[in-house]
């Protein structure tokens, strides 16, 4: 269990994998926001239903899912070899590969590359990896403006807000709020919102189109993430719905891609599996509208300068944990968020990481180490809905339990055990011997006046804040059984 402790996790203080605020506190604040509850409840239930329909259409979904898991497990088991193959292929086709141990190194590499190009601003394709490392803030502190071009990321950026969903980062906003953000903030960022802008979705899309078109036409550098990289040819792939990503990937002279090291697939044949699994799981589409693929540089066509930054940031540490490594199969579809009863009620900000929901509750503590994200493994009722919908069959409930063990074990060396640990040890001591349990069971009767008068100690009082307690019976089951003879 200690073999993986020596490997570096994602460093604290850079990027967005932990807020430091315990989940229950952040969740309590989110639960009081009835607008947020309404927006989220509506959005997640709609997408949930659509996903179920899109998946039910595919007769061999179970086999596709097993194939997706198997391909990713092969990638993880042979990551060293595939990464070197990718580097060789990208380099042979005119690209440059950079290796970043963590968020700080990745940010420094990208900043240096942008500075070398002479550009003062960059356009960005929606990317989880660059959100994870806090790239926009790093560029800003170097005097470089990074413009998000995905519509939802643009809404989040203009609103000086944080993404709350992997796929739909502005899921917590409704269109009236979006209109207000556009009217208030667009002018300072470039082309202002049209006069008299309404909250009609077509009008909002047109305002964003006009605003972004100026960015696309003037940008000399683009920064993207990658959904997949094909090791055998060095090809990178981005899938999206809007086409804004393709503008960034084709128009500027320089393209910098930041990609987690686990995003590889060995061959084009393997890509076929994921291009079926991903759109149906994430947007409930049979096929995503835009699939952009590029291999190195092609003279006279697209960027002439291509850089690939391979990001570790705790991934090798995750890979070293046998009970946690399958989290690296994740293809960021966010199906688990949309079915999660906890996410549906708290939204993404409560998780304090760019990866919210069930996958975030396992991935964030894996990347940072459990000490920086102690409460996230407990942010689940273990209902199992996430595992059922995961297109690469990550057993999230079992992994949450594993991470809870890591949290508990990390607290064991402390001189003073927590009240919880004392209670758990006492209960375990009682249950270890049938004779002890029999004696404690008989004491249950004494709970009757306590329940009747409602003088309750914690944690019973926490329970009783919203629920009545059951009245303990006069006779336990086993006493009834013995009387019966």
């Amino acid at each position, binding site marked *: 269990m200690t073999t993986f402790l020596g490997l570096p996790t994602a460093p604290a203080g850079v990027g967005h994998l932990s807020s430091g605020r315990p*989940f*229950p506190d952040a*969740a*309590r604040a989110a*639960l009081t926001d009835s607008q947020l509850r309404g927006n989220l409840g509506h959005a997640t239930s709609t997408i949930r239903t659509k996903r179920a329909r899109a998946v039910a259409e595919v007769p061999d979904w179970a086999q596709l899912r097993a194939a997706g898991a198997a391909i990713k497990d092969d990638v993880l088991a042979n990551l060293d070899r595939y990464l070197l193959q990718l580097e060789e292929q990208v380099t042979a086709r005119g690209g440059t590969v950079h290796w970043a141990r963590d968020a700080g190194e990745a940010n420094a590499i990208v900043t240096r590359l942008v500075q070398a190009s002479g550009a003062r601003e960059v356009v960005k394709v929606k990317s989880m990896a660059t959100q994870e490392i806090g790239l926009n803030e790093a560029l800003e502190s170097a005097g470089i403006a990074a413009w998000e071009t995905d519509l939802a990321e643009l809404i989040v950026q203009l609103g000086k807000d944080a993404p709350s969903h992997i796929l739909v980062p502005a899921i917590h906003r409704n269109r009236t709020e979006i209109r207000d953000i556009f009217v208030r903030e667009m002018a300072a960022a470039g082309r202002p919102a049209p006069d008299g802008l309404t909250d009609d979705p077509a009008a909002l899309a047109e305002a964003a189109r006009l605003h972004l078109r100026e960015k696309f036409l003037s940008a000399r550098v683009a920064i993207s993430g990658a959904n997949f990289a094909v090791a055998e040819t060095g090809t990178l792939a981005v899938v999206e719905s809007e086409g804004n990503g393709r503008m960034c990937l084709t128009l500027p002279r320089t393209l910098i891609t930041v990609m987690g090291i686990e995003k590889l697939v060995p061959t084009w044949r393997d890509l076929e599996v994921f291009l079926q699994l991903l759109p149906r799981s994430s947007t409930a589409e049979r096929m995503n509208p835009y699939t952009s693929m590029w291999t190195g540089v092609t003279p006279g066509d697209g960027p002439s300068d291509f850089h690939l930054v391979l990001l570790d940031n705790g991934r090798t540490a995750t890979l070293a944990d046998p009970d946690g490594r399958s989290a690296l199969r994740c293809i960021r579809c966010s199906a688990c968020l949309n079915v999660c*009863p*906890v996410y549906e*009620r*708290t939204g993404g900000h409560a998780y304090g990481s760019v990866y919210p929901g069930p996958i975030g509750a396992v991935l964030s503590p894996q990347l940072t180490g459990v000490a920086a994200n102690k409460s996230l*493994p*407990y*942010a*689940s*009722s*273990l*209902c*199992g*809905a996430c595992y*059922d919908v995961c297109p690469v069959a990550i057993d999230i409930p079992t992994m949450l*339990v594993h*991470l*809870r*063990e*890591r*949290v*508990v*074990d990390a607290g064991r060396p402390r001189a003073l055990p927590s009240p*919880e*640990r004392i209670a*758990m*040890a006492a*209960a*375990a001591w*009682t*249950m*270890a*011997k*049938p004779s002890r*349990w*029999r004696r404690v*069971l008989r004491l*249950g009767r004494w709970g009757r006046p306590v329940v009747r008068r409602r003088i309750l100690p914690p*944690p019973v009082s*926490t*329970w009783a*804040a*919203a*629920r*009545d*307690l*059951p009245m*303990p*019976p006069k*006779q*336990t*089951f*086993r006493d*009834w*059984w*013995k009387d019966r003879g």
Partner: protein
Amino acid sequence: MKIALFITCLVDGLFPDVGKATVRLLERLGHQVDVPLDQTCCGQMHLNTGYSREARPMVRNFAEAFAGYDAIVAPSGSCVGSVRHQHPAVAHRMGDEALAARVDDVSRRVYELSEFLVDVLGVEDVGARFPHRVTYHPTCHSLRLLRVEDKPLRLLRAVRGLDLVELPDADQCCGFGGTFALKNADVSTAMLADKMTNILATDAEVITAGDSSCLMHIGGGLSRLRSGVRPVHLAEILAAT
């Protein structure tokens, strides 16, 4: 067939009527039931909260208490889920091969009540009568860990006089989740509120399920609302005549 009742600690201490109903039901169907009194708790709460080291003696005790039975039946989906899916992993990690072999053997013989009735005994009509309007909540571990599917519903549909109404969004978690209800009490309560809204929309007199723990949570909320809807375990309905 030598049948043992795995009472579960919660039913033993707080809901003895559920245990009595399970015994009466199985006896009415012509089977002799034994209750090994050395059983304590399966350790699910410890395991799911991260205290797997503390749960080890409970895993050992379970395998010892239930050795030698053909079938071990429990009125709880989540306790059966823990024994079937977690006990073998814990035992194998303990490095005691004899124990691991015994746990593997015992955990294969453990059944949730509806599984045992439909899959092992092959009955759907247990001869019950329960003239009430009832709605059924499929608890998460029965549904997704054990895959009991519609077995509880098939049993309920065969009960005389029972008016079964479909629960909207039935497969959504009620928000109990063991220590989740305490550690994330506010989220748990928000989930419970939506579950109760759906239950009240059915106009049912009775909410039933295969787990006393989830029913304690749902019933505790319904009682606080003075809603008049009663929580009744599936075993109690099937035992009623």
